[in-house]
Structure formats: C-alpha cells, structure tokens
C-alpha cells in the first residue's frame, strides 16, 4: 500500500515523548515512532526538544510549560493548528491527526485534507443537561462531520453523543512491552499507583490492606493541589506495612509492579483508559479494579484479574483469591491487546480507511 504523509498535531505544553509524566504525549510519541518505522512520512507539530521520530515542526521556541505560558492562553496551540492546516492546504499531507481536543475541532472546516481526532480526555457530560455543557455542545454540533477516535468503548458510551458509526472508532492505547519485564512469581504484597487523589481510590486500597493486615506499597505523583489531601487522608495510615514510595520513573515501574501479588485499582470515576492497569498486567501482575469506566474492557474478570462492584468487602474477597490467576496469561493479554504495535496498526488502518 502507498506510504502516507501524516501530520501529528500534539499539545505544546511539554515535549513528545515527555521527560516525566504525560500520558497523551507518550501515546503520540509511540505513534510517530511506529508510523515512521513502517515507512510513513510523519511530520510532528510539537514543542522543541521532542525526540519522537518524524520531521519536527515547532511554532514556538520552548515547551509552553517552560515558558510560563498560562494554560488558559491558547495563542500557540492555535498557531500550531493553523500552521499544520496551512501546510495541509499547500498539499503536504495525506492525513492530519489532531490530539488537541476542543481547539482542533473547528479546524476541519479549514482544510480538505482528511482529519481524525483522538479524544484522550473524557467527553462526559458535566451537567445533568448535556446542552448546558459547552464543550459537549460543540462536539455535538460537529459530531456528524468529524472522524473521531475514543480510547475505549466506555469513553465512547459515556460521551452521550451520537457519532456516525463509520466515522467513529475505538482504538485502545498501547504500551512498549520491552519496558516492562515479566515477573512470573510475583510476591506477597499489593501495590497501588496513580496520581494521588480521591478518584483513583487510594483510600479504598488502604482500607482493604488494613483489614487484611497485609503489606501495600503506594506510588505516584502528588500534585501541589493534592498535598493537603495526602497529608490529611493518606499520611496518617502510613506505617511499616503501608508505605508511600514517591513518584516513579518509567525505568522503575517494572520493579514496582513485578514483585507484587496484585495491583489494586478501586477507582471512583469513569476512567477512560487506565494505563496503570495495562502496565501492571505487562509485568504479569493481575489487577483488581472496581467496575468503573474502561475497567471491564482492560481486565478479563477471573483471567487477568478481578473486576468487582464498588464494595470494600468484594475487594477483600478478590484479594484473597488472587492466586487463582495465571500470571503468564496476564502478560499474554497485554501482548495481544495492548501493545504499541497493535495501537499503531489500528491507527494505520484507520488512516487508510479514511482515504479510501
């Protein structure tokens, strides 16, 4: 098949891939690397310092976060979108892939080059009346005209918008399996990792571990806005058995997940994907999650972990029977469904479909 000229339009706050935290940026990087390796001509519109494969075009001389540009000031993201659109209109690309949510939405009007959007963030209603939510309304108005990709069935269902079937896709995020070592033995303790906040269910994990009197390791970033939450609700529970080990780099993740019996993910929101789940499973460590958001899609209940209703007793029950899970199958599931190769395949296929 003909190789494509593909424009990837990334957010400009940090580099692609990110030096530390940044889920969207990591996905965009894998996509650029993978597509380039398959011989496509990738042009990446992103911040200077980005090292993903492809031709890098930067409209501003620093990542916006380093330049202290306010999050509410869209001037450079608009310029980024404008330049990509101008270049498309000059005939430089076969397809444009936007990762910029709302801001990118309007730009398909400005070019004849086919456009696809990935919704990395949830597109949920925030009011009881969906019409009152302006972001949702704007997507609603464009829904019939845009090609859109969700990162899980749950994310699509939660969106509460009618998107035409043939323009709507679900493409799961993928991970680089070579970064996650398979640990066939596991261990005696449990782990929890995420950004430290209430929605990620850290308190549920602690309560379950305390009831069982079992060891639990906590990890993940504490945002400045969450230090009070951490000090009030988490810190008092820390002791010999329940420990917080800080924010981990990607290199440290395998040694965190691998030696654990299971990863606890008793979340309290409709999480659209849940990279933690897939990373843990890549190390062979099963996941026990509350049935929220995409969890039933990522975890096969009874086979790669347990998906349970939001209830502490059920969580404890599941923890007791976690040894039933075959860790080899857990790893295998990720290889089949959540590798970056599979993700790049899916996007590549989507591009060809849009062009045919």
């Amino acid at each position, binding site marked *: 098949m003909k190789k494509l000229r593909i424009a990837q339009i990334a957010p400009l706050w940090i580099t692609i891939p990110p030096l530390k935290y940044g889920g969207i940026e990591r996905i965009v990087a894998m996509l650029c690397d993978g597509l380039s390796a398959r011989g496509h001509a990738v042009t990446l519109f992103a911040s200077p310092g980005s090292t993903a494969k492809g031709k890098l075009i930067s*409209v*501003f001389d620093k990542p916006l976060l380093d*330049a202290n540009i306010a*999050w*509410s000031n*869209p*001037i*450079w993201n*608009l*310029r980024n*979108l*404008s*330049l990509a*659109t*101008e270049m498309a*209109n000059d005939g430089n690309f076969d397809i444009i892939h936007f990762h910029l949510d*709302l*801001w990118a*939405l*309007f*730009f398909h*009007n*400005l*070019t004849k080059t086919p456009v696809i959007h990935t919704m990395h963030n949830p597109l949920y209603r925030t009011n009881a009346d969906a019409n009152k939510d*302006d*972001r949702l*309304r*704007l997507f609603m*108005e464009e829904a019939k005209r845009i090609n859109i990709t969700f990162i899980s069935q749950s994310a699509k269902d939660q969106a509460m918008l009618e998107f035409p079937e043939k323009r709507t896709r679900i493409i799961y995020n993928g991970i680089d399996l070579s970064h996650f070592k398979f640990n066939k033995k596991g261990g005696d303790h449990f782990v929890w990792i995420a950004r430290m906040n209430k929605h990620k269910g850290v308190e549920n994990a602690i309560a379950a571990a305390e009831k069982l009197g079992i060891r639990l390791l906590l990890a993940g970033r504490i945002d400045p806005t969450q230090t009070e939450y951490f000090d009030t609700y988490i810190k008092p529970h820390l002791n010999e058995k329940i420990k917080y080990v800080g924010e981990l780099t990607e290199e440290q993740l395998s040694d965190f997940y691998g030696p654990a019996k299971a990863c606890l993910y008793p979340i309290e929101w409709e999480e659209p994907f849940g990279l933690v789940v897939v990373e843990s499973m890549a190390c062979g460590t099963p996941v026990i999650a509350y049935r929220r958001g995409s969890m039933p899609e990522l975890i096969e209940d009874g086979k790669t972990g347990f998906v349970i209703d939001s209830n502490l007793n059920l969580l404890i029950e599941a923890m007791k029977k976690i040894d039933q899970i075959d860790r080899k199958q857990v790893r295998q599931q990720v290889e089949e469904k959540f590798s970056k190769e599979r993700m790049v395949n899916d996007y590549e296929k989507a591009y060809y479909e849009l062009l045919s």
Partner: protein
Amino acid sequence: MLSLLTEELVKRNYDITLFASGDSETSAKLIPLTEKAIWLQKGLRSPHAYINTAIKIIYKFRNSFDLFHNHFDFFMFPLCLSETIPILTTLHRPIDSVTAQAYRAYNKIFFCAISEDQRQSAEENGISMAGVVYNGISPEKYIFRETADDYFMYLGRVNKEKGIVDAISAARDAGVKLLVAGNMVGGDEWNYFLHEVQPLLNEENINFVGQIDFNEKVRLLGGAKALLFPIDRREPFGLVMIEAMACGTPIIAYRRGSVPEVVKDKKTGFIVNNKEEMTEAIKKIHTIKRKDCRAHVEQNFTLKQMVDKYEEIYKKLI
C-alpha cells in the same frame, strides 16, 4: 470604544453587524456569540468553549460582508486560513515580542495600531500596519469645568503597570489630596491591591472610591486639578487621558508609549520621567490652561476623526 465606533458607522449609513455578547446594546444588527457577557460568569475556568463558539459563528459569515473589523485579538486569526473577506484587526493591547511572533505568522491579517508609538513597537517586532487610528470620543458628552476642586486624581486598573503606587506617593510628597478610582480584575490585582495599595490608603489625603460609572467619572475627572498617569508600560493609547482633557483636566504622565502623542507637554499637562518630577509638576499645575486641554481633544481626538480614519482604511482594504 467599540460601541462608539459601531454607533457612528450606523449613523453614516453603513450596514453594520455586531458580533458580541447577547446582552450588548447596539443600533447595529446584533449576532450574539454568547447569551451574556462572559465577564459576568463567576467561576468560569477557561473561556475556550466560548471562543470556539465565537469562531464557529463568525466563520459562517466569512463571505457575507465586505470586511471584518476584529477587536478580539488573535482568537479570530484562524479564519484567514480559508477564503474570507479582508480581516482588519485593531490592536488594543501593548505588543510584546513573544506574542508578536504569532501575529507575524498570520500574514493575511491586516493590522491597525492606536498610536504611532504602538505602530513603531509593532514594526520593531516585524508586524506591518495598515494604519494608525487614534481612539476618539464625543467631547460634548464630557462636561467642561473651567475651575477644579482641590484634589488630583488617579483613574485606572489597580496594578503595577498602571502606576497607582507612584501616583499615591507623588501626591503625598507634594502634599496634595488624591482621589483614587479603580477596579481590580482577577486574583493578581486583588493581591496587589491588598498588599501594596491598601496600606497607603489609610492616609488622610488619599481617598479610594473604587469602580465608578460614566457620569461619576465625568464628574470626578472634571473636578480634578490634574490626572496622574504614571504609566509603567508602553501604553498603546490611554483613553482616560483624553477623557480627562475633554473635561478640561490636565495630565501629568510618565514618558512611556503613546503619552507624548496624546499630551502636549507644558500645554495640556506635563510629561515627566519619574516620581520626583511628577511631584514637581503637581506643584506647578496652575500654569496649565484648562481650556487648552479641552481644545486639544476637540481638535485631535474626536469620534468623528477616528471613524473618518477607519473609513479610509476600510476603503483601502475593500
């Protein structure tokens, strides 16, 4: 300013459509971009959805007029990526070198400055201008006062760049009364007010009146011996200066941005370089004739002149 421009253009029989918030009052055709001014929405975290809505609505009309006159800064620039009527953008804010990089890249947008100094500042940053149009007002709406009361005045936003602290200390050093009228927008300005300004207000001669409406503004400006304008940025125009002069009130301003174009030194006020010079100027304000101030506005900064100039530019672009 936009309202004045719109009303005058309607009077001159142009077919004007105003894209603005739905609660705007205008004689032009109004196409609402939002129901109410988003200013009024407490707790609005980001204006992104509103701006996107605005772009979308205006885009539908991209070929319905002879010209877009844009006062909404860079937000409307993406419109020029498709075939549209000419877009003239008046730059109402100071130009910084970082923002200028983005402006420059949109080479189909026509720009208009509101003072020669702002034009120069734009051109230093590589943005060429289709013209310069001074802001204008209707002098007849400002009551001329031949004699002033016994106070000086500061009128403007409460922040460092607008020089409120210098105004207060210059007045204090000169031993005169100062009336401070101003408002705070956003957390930074409130902090500045609480920590830098409020402690100075306890003094007997410094009187803070907060935000005032138009009639109050005319009344208080007219009664002032002079308006203190110790601006600490490259001011693109400084509307309050012509409003004060229209009331007969001279200006004592720092030599920044547009000030030398708006104030005639020693004739309609004093242009000074620092706080000490401002204090000296306060003491000799009686040498300025209030009639000269009013006449200066009538001759140079009227709404009629502003709209005449815009008409010229419109004709050039169409």
